[in-house]
Every structure is written in C-alpha cells, then in structure tokens.
C-alpha cells in the first residue's frame, strides 16, 4: 500500500488525509497544533469579496481563475472548488453544513457587519437577513466577546446586500454558565448548552423578553457536542434563532473539527499530533522522509508522497525573521509574492499588506512549483493556506482554497501512486 504523509491538521490537512485514506492510501497526519478550524468562524468561505460583495462564489471564482494567474484559484479552478465543497458536505452532512457553491449567505458578524460565506451551520441560517425582518440580538452578560448593542446598532443602520433594512433591538440576559463565574468563555457556555437542563433555564429566562415575530440572534455557543442544542433552544423559545460566530475559541469551528477528525480516524488516518515537523530528507530530488521533534528522540516518517498543509504565517509554516527574510520553515520552498515591493506598509485601512499574500505556488495537480514554473520535488504537494497569492481573510476565500487544493492534491497523489 502506498504511503502518504500529510503535514497540518486544519481544514486542508484533515480533508486531504481523509480522502487519501478513503482512496486506499496509508496516511499519516502530522500536526503541531490543533488545527486552524478552531480559530476561524466555523463557516466555509469560498469567495466573499472581489472586493465587491459576491453572491455566487463559484461563478465569480471562475472569473478570478482566468484573470489572476497568481491566485490559488487559477490552479484550483471552479471544478476543484466544487469537488472540495461537495466532498466536505458529503463527509459532514446537513447537521453540520448546509448551502451550496452557487450561493453565499450574508450573515451578521459579532460586530454587526454583514459577512458573505458559502456553507454554514444550520444554526446560522436564520441570520441570512431579509428586508423588514425583525431581529433581537441577545447577549450574555458574562460573555464579553459578544456585545449585543454593537451588533444590533450596526445591523440596524446597514442596507442589506439585496436592499432594504431590518428592524433590530438588543438585550442582555444574565444566565451563568458556571456558578460564581462572571468571565465565561464561549467554550464554557457551549458546554453548558450541551446540557438540556441548562437550555430549559436559558429559554425560561429569555422567552418572556421576546416579542411576536422576532428572530433571535445569539452568540455561537449553542452546544459543543450536541448538534441539536440550537434547534432545541429555538423550539423552547418558540422563535427562530441564529448563531453569530465569535473570535477564537470558535465553537462552530470546534464542531467542524471534531466531526472531521472523527471522519479521518474512521477512514484509517494515523494521527500524530503535538509534534512539529522540523526536517526532511530528499534523494534525487524526491522527498524520502520528514522528521518530527518529539520528547524522546527525533522521529522520521518515510512515505511515497508528502502533502504540506501547514497553513501560513498564522501557524508558523511561514516566517519572517528580524532582517525581513521570509521563508517556508520546513522544506525551504521557493515563495511567490516576495518581489511585490515592500511587504508591509503603514496604512492599516489601506491596501492589503503584501506579506500575507506570500506563499508557495502550485501546479494544477497541487505540486509545488519554483519561480520558473518547474516542479520542486516530484512527490511534494501543497494545500490550504501555505499556497500564496490570495488575501484569504479579506476576500473570504480561505476555506474554498483549502478544500479545492486538498481534494485535488489527494486525487493527484492517488493517481500518481496507483
């Protein structure tokens, strides 16, 4: 059986590893941390802004793919993204993700902006705003990362992407997640919402404060393990509810992560978490093995193919040193985007900082290319945030890139090793 090593346990790494294992490969997934899904918003962003607001992500990314050759979507293509989305939806099912590649939801954020995203938790769908909707944004006094007045008053003065406005009010209620604690995290609340008895108390407190016809916006803490917690809350309140994602720790991201990790395990992926991959060995240009740093002794994993899905600067897969030199920290891969002039500038609200578009370049089969367009190592592939050329967070494209590149890389590896 052919052997593959995947480095990185975010959306790209977990998706690719699962697909590889399901396709018959023996897969080892090495990761330093717990994966980026738990830092993000817990929705699947494909394309949100170009910078104009995007309503049909797959259609719009096809245009980007043809007009911006440096963008990851040029290599991945609309078909790749489509395949990635369908694969993930199939893996996780409608209890975790709904939506399709042709439509963006426009959902409120925890500051009250309206954010385009492609696949969402069903617990967020009622947040897709329609003109003349009546909303109430409900804060929890002991949860500081969700300030309901800020959300409500920004939504109230925003014209919806399709035109029209919504009526929004806000309120705060005091329902402790743990007795005696005034500073509870979203995660603490999510665990509390897993308990049906807590949901009863919560709904009993909130229900009398709601008005006829109101849709209830809540912080995205409605259950960590119990995927029906949000709908149970809605039933008990007798009102539609929707979750609004918070800054990390991301409860919706944790739900996705847990489900995807379970799928990877079930598919037979061997998980080696907690160790940084620090070195590699090559022979005749091909990667032979990578070495992780462990408490006892360094340990090498050999394989026939390697997939780098370790993320970008946010995870340490890319680094800039104090002299301004930028590097990919494991293989020392050639990076694109370094010749764009100064990599950072002083205008915070101005153009995207070029630094965060730096990354590796890939071919259509997701093998890593050098500056001249030649394959660097015949058996080294890349997926996700390590691929440069996009403003992932600003344009809301990170998950589409991760999924498309993961599926394409997995399929290329399976084909190559067949």
């Amino acid at each position, binding site marked *: 059986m052919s052997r593959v090593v995947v480095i990185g346990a975010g959306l790209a790494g977990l998706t690719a590893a699962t697909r590889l294992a399901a396709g018959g490969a023996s897969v080892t997934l090495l990761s330093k941390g717990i994966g980026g899904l738990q830092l993000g918003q817990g929705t699947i962003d494909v394309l949100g802004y170009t910078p104009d607001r995007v309503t049909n992500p797959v259609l719009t990314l096809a245009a980007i793919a043809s007009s911006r050759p440096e963008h990851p979507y040029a290599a991945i293509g609309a078909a790749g993204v489509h395949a990635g989305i369908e694969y993930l939806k199939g893996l996780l099912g409608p209890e975790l993700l709904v939506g399709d590649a042709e439509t963006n939801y426009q959902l409120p954020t925890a500051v009250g*902006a309206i954010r385009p995203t492609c696949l969402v938790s069903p617990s967020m769908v009622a947040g897709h705003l329609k003109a003349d909707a009546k909303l109430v944004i409900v804060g929890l006094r002991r949860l500081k990362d969700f300030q309901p*007045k*800020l959300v409500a008053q*920004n939504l109230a003065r925003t014209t919806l992407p399709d035109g029209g406005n919504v009526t929004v009010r806000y309120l705060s209620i005091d329902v402790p997640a743990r007795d005696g604690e*005034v*500073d509870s995290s979203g995660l603490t609340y999510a665990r509390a919402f897993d308990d049906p008895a807590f949901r009863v108390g919560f709904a009993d407190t909130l229900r009398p404060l709601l008005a006829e016809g109101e849709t209830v916006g809540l912080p995205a803490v409605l259950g960590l393990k119990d995927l029906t917690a949000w709908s149970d809350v809605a039933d008990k309140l007798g009102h539609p509810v929707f979750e609004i994602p918070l800054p990390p720790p991301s409860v919706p991201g944790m739900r996705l992560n847990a489900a995807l990790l379970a799928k990877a395990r079930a598919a037979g992926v061997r998980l080696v978490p907690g160790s940084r991959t620090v070195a590699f060995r090559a022979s005749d240009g091909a990667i032979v093995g990578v070495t992780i740093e462990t408490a006892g002794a360094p340990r090498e994993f050999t394989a026939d193919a390697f997939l780098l899905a370790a993320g970008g600067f*946010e995870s*340490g897969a890319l680094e800039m040193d*104090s002299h301004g030199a930028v590097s990919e920290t494991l293989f020392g891969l050639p990076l694109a985007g370094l010749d764009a002039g100064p990599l950072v500038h002083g205008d915070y609200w101005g153009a995207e900082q070029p*630094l965060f578009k730096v990354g590796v370049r890939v071919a259509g089969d997701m093998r890593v290319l050098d500056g001249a367009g030649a394959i660097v190592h015949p058996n080294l592939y890349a997926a996700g945030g390590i691929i440069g050329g996009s403003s992932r967070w600003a344009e809301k494209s990170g998950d589409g890139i991760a999924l498309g590149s993961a599926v394409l890389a997995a399929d290329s590896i399976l084909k190559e090793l067949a």
Partner: protein
Amino acid sequence: MRKLAVDVVVIGGGSTGAGVVRDVAMRGYSAVLLDRADLGQGTTGRFHGLLHSGGRYVVSDPMSATECAQENAILARIQASAIETTGGYFVTCPGDDPAFADKFLAGAAATGVPAREIAVAEALRNEPRLNPGIMRAVEVEDGTVDGWQLVWGAANSAKAYGAQVLTYHAVTRIDREGNRVSAVHCTDLKSGEEVVIDCNFVLNCAGPWAGQIAHMAGADPVDVIPGRGIMIAMNHRLVNRVVNRMIYPADGDILVPVHTVSIIGTTDVKVDDPDNLAIEQDEVQQMLDAGEVLIPGFRNARALHAWAGARPLIKDKRVAAADTRHMSRGMAVIDHTERDGLDGMLTIGGGKLTTYRLMAEHIVDAMCEKLGETRECRTAKENIPGPEATRNYVVTHRLEEREHDRLEEQIICECELMSRKMFTEALANQPKGTFDDLRRQLRLGMGPCQGGFCTTRATGIALETDHIDIERANGLLRLFLKNRWIGLWPILYGDQVRQTALDNWIFQGTLDVEHLPQPESEVAL
C-alpha cells in the same frame, strides 16, 4: 465662546507642564493647564520608561547626574505607585573599554550617585540573560516610571489644589497688552468652542513645540531642536533591572523593564518637525543589534511595538546642531523680558522626565521672582494622592488585584489584566476620550495581541454604557486599530507576524470589520 480668568496659564500637558501646574497651584495661584492633545501624549509618553539614577551622566554631565540622583529619591517617595524601584546595572560589554568603569565610579562618587561595583558572576546570576562576556558590572539605583501615571498624578494633584486641566485644547493665539502677555486663546478641539483665558502669566512648557508657542506670543524664535529617538518594546521582561552599557552615552545602550515588557532605547536624530517622527528601518536594525550586545539572542525575542519621541532640547551653540545627544540635557529657562522685551511669559526647555519636578520648581521660582513674590515650593514634601500612594509599583500588582476580583470582574484585556471596571471607570472620567487616551492610563491593547481581542470588547462596552453612539463606536474602533498598526508595522517580524496574522483573521476574517457601515468621516480625537 467661553471666558476664563486665572493667574497662570501653563501650556503643555507633558511631565514638565503637569509638574509646573501642580507647583503653581500648590503655591496658591489659580491656574489652567492646556494641551492640544491628551496628557502625556507627546515626549512624556514616548520614552523608554527609565527613572534615572544619574549613572548615565556621571561622566558626561555631572550636574545632571546629581540632580537625577536627588530627584529619583524624591519621586520614588512622592509618586510611589508610578515608579518601580528596579535597580540597574551598568555593564562593560565585549569590545567596550573596561577602564571606563573607573571613570564611572569616580564620577559617581563625585556627583553623589550611589554606585557599587559588583562581581560579574553576581550580575549574571541576577540577570541570567545578560551577555556572559561582560567584563565589569556596577550596580546603581535606576528605576522605571510610567510616564502617563506620573503626569496624571501631578495633574490630579494640581486639580486638588484648584487648577483646571483642559486637554484637547489647542492654543491658537496669545494676546499682549503693551509688553505684557494678557490672554491665551484656545480651541476646544472636541467641541469646537473658542476659549479665551485672561491671565497674568504664561508658562510655556510645550517641549518640542515650545518654539511654536513662543512665536505666537511674538517672541523671537526659540531654537528647540527636536531630537528623535526610537524605542522598541519586547514582549517580556528580558531583564528585571535596568541594564545600561558602561560607555559614554550612545545609541541603543539601555534596556528598561517596564510593566510586563522591556524597552530598548534609543537613537538620536535631529528632526525638523516634532509632529512627524518616522521609525526608520535602519534605526530598528540598529536597536536590535544593540540589544544583541546586551542580551545574546535578542533578535529572537518578540518585538511588540515601536515608537518615536522627540527630545525638547534647547539649542546650545557649543555643539554642532546635528549632534543633539551632546547638547546639555540641563534645563533652560528662557526669560522673554530680557530676550524679547516681552513680560509675563517664561519658556522652559531641555531637562528630562526624571527631573520634571525640579524643572517645575525652577521655572515657578523664576515666575515668582518676576512677580516680586516669595512663595515656597512644596512639591517635594507632599505625596501625590492616588491609589496605593505610598507603595512602589511592582509588576505583579495587577495580577494581585485580579486574583482578588476575578469572581466579580471580567478581564477585558487579558494581556495587561485590565478589568471591565477599570475600563468603565476610566471612560466615565474621560467620556470623550479615544481608546488611546484610555490606553495611556489602562494599558489597553498594549500587550502581545496588540488589541486583537480587547478592541471589540472595549468598543461594545463603551457603546453599551452610553458614553458613545454607534457612529463614534465604529470610528473609535477604526482609529485604535490604525494607531496600533503605526507602532507595529515597523517592527513586524518573527512571532509578531504570526500574531498579526491571527488578528487579521479575527478582524477581517471572522468579524469583517472593514465592511461595517463606513463612518462619514474618520474619528481623529
């Protein structure tokens, strides 16, 4: 238009002006302090946090050394909670002249600066990150000081004696009657209101901007040479004492532990405009190299933030104008009667934060003399009121406070352990303040995440408590992130890049802040 009448108008809300208004008020004059921005927003807030023992000047400037030693002891007593008595070392690094230590010790003895040579092994034991190649070490009584607490303490003391403190009031005109200053006109920048203050005397304490103020009164140009220095805060206390290189004062020769960070300083470049202080890449590299000399591996530590300040040095014809380090740091009181035939105004320049109280004493003495009055200075005798006024700061204070109130209070800024109550109380005191105004008192957003997690909380809480409306809330959020970035991008490398990526992920990715309803105009104050 609003009219006020006072004995004395003090212009400039840095340490000098705050010290002066306190002194004036304690001597029984009615007084107003004016600043076009917040207190301590200029030079006072843009230094390295060093409370001099005097050691730095024992060879180059003996008189300053003696003054520093005396004032250090006074301030540590009267403003205890603003000062941490860290102690300090002067160390001879590899390549430095070991014989300088002999001159240093002789100078210290002659100037009354407490100093004691210790074994290198003892220095390394107490500060294990120090360069193991150091050849000599001298222990001194350096401390660290929070410039904002210092200036707010002095201003609050002045207020207790009846003075008014008007921040965000920009002086627009100074009237004369004959040869005498008679009134100061200013604009309340927050409301747009004009304020005219009739007065007997003006004390110009505007630091690098003192020349501009003197010019408004019709005085001949006062040659203030702003000397720009940059500082970089590293995210840990790499040392727990101030560490100085035992050399003639030079660039990048001090590392100062202040609060939870340590600050490397500084450079000195003559600039023309104190409102436009760039943080140049070559100076950043110079500071990092200097840090490597004191602490091997310094470049691998995480730089959090950089800033530049302008020294308010009065031109001294003895040295070349481009070499501001070797101009006297001694204070200079400019008597406009003799110089310009202008009565009722004095300008003070030079000096340093450690001697701010003494500078105030001098200029207020000079004013009393001009007014033909004898009123005793009592600023060294009376403690400045405030929390724990008799207890020197230690870095664990906030941790101790949070341990006491963690079950009652949310922590809004985890990096700096700022509680919700601290924030809402400061906001109630300064409801028109920006988050930077509050930051200077609370350290909001000054830790490793540089506002990544606390900015939206602060925005939401300020809105919820009805101090601001939604338009201003978004404007303040935008302004705070923009201002944090000013000090971030020049030192963006290593782990701070990683942090910035996470912050971008939160603000752009999860919150989509750039697509909030755009303010009609950006909030500036």
